[in-house]
């Protein structure tokens, strides 16, 4: 195929650096049950996250979400299918491969997220570059930032993610990019 080379694709991708999406609202408010499932996943039985009665008498007056939970709950979520595509910064980056691995994750937590909060998020592409990994010598590395805001337009958290996007071994072979 006479498609663009990884380097040409990178050149296009780098034009998106700094571009920020519109705020994407969450479909539903923060609810008890997704927090409960999140805690169940890691065996966390902290009543601050699960017990409305306990939380009512504790510091925040109501159940709050565990740290980093917001990543799972904000945005439109995995179901139902969206009638229109939600723009993401990384989604606009065209790259040779479409296999993703998330590497570094950073959070800054500024405000508690409570049950009932309505969270929206915006995304920004911070950086994109090529760096080999074992699986693909032309792996795209993407650095994204997500800013989470509540219903009062307060920033409650920011997240910075470094993600690699690589080709399958078959695709690497087909492209003639022998492993480095």
């Amino acid at each position, binding site marked *: 195929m006479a498609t663009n080379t990884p380097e040409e694709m990178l050149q296009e991708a780098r034009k998106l650096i700094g571009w920020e999406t519109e705020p994407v609202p969450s*479909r*539903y*408010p923060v*609810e*008890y*049950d*997704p927090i*409960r*499932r999140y*805690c*169940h996943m890691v065996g966390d*039985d902290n*009543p601050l996250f*699960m017990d*409305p009665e306990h939380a009512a008498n504790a510091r925040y007056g109501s159940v709050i979400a565990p740290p980093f939970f917001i990543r799972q*709950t904000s945005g439109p*979520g*995995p*179901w*139902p*299918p969206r009638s229109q595509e939600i723009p993401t910064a990384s989604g606009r980056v065209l790259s040779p491969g479409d296999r993703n691995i998330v590497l570094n994750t950073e959070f800054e937590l500024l405000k508690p997220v409570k049950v009932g909060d309505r969270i929206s998020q915006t995304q920004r592409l911070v950086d994109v570059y090529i760096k080999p990994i074992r699986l693909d010598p032309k792996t795209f590395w993407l650095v994204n930032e997500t800013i989470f805001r509540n219903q009062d337009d307060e920033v409650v958290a920011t997240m910075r993610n470094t993600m690699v996007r690589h080709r399958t071994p078959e695709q690497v072979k087909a492209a003639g990019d022998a492993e480095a």
Partner: protein
Amino acid sequence: MADKTPEDILEDARKFIGIESQTVASRYAVEYDPIRRYCHMVDDDNPLFLDPEYAATTEFGSVVAPPFFIRQTAGPGPWPPRTEEVPGVLAQVPSPGDRTINLNTEFECYKPIKVGDRISHKQRLVDIYIKAIRLDPKSFWTVYDTIYTNQDGEVVLVMRNTLCRHRTPEEVKAAGDAPETSSS
């Protein structure tokens, strides 16, 4: 072991027929997200279950739960661990095996269940008998009702379940109850 025979155990078990468990409240009200996950499980994109804006325009006025959803959501749920055990009827009914397979399920639906509803339930043992399955010639077939009520005390749904409780092949062998090998 000089344990009781399955038939002895059945006699004990049948004493529970008609007995009702105490009422168990759900930990949380019915919420959007568990409904969304339930729909996702079966690729259901019905906006009545998923879209608050759409649901507001229907005769229900708000998002309702899909039929049978309640079974997954009522009660204290799988997490966190309970500090006190809530005695369900089934847990009290003895049987030789503790492996279960759910067989028949029947629902009778009386009222819509909406986001925000607080659902409680109780159980009632209806019948219990021995019937062979391939894995265990002395399987206990257990029929029980679960009665669901909302915050106004209205019965919204009744579920009748037939559950087969069987032993593992090892337990069957240890008890000397070889499953029938020839075709019956």
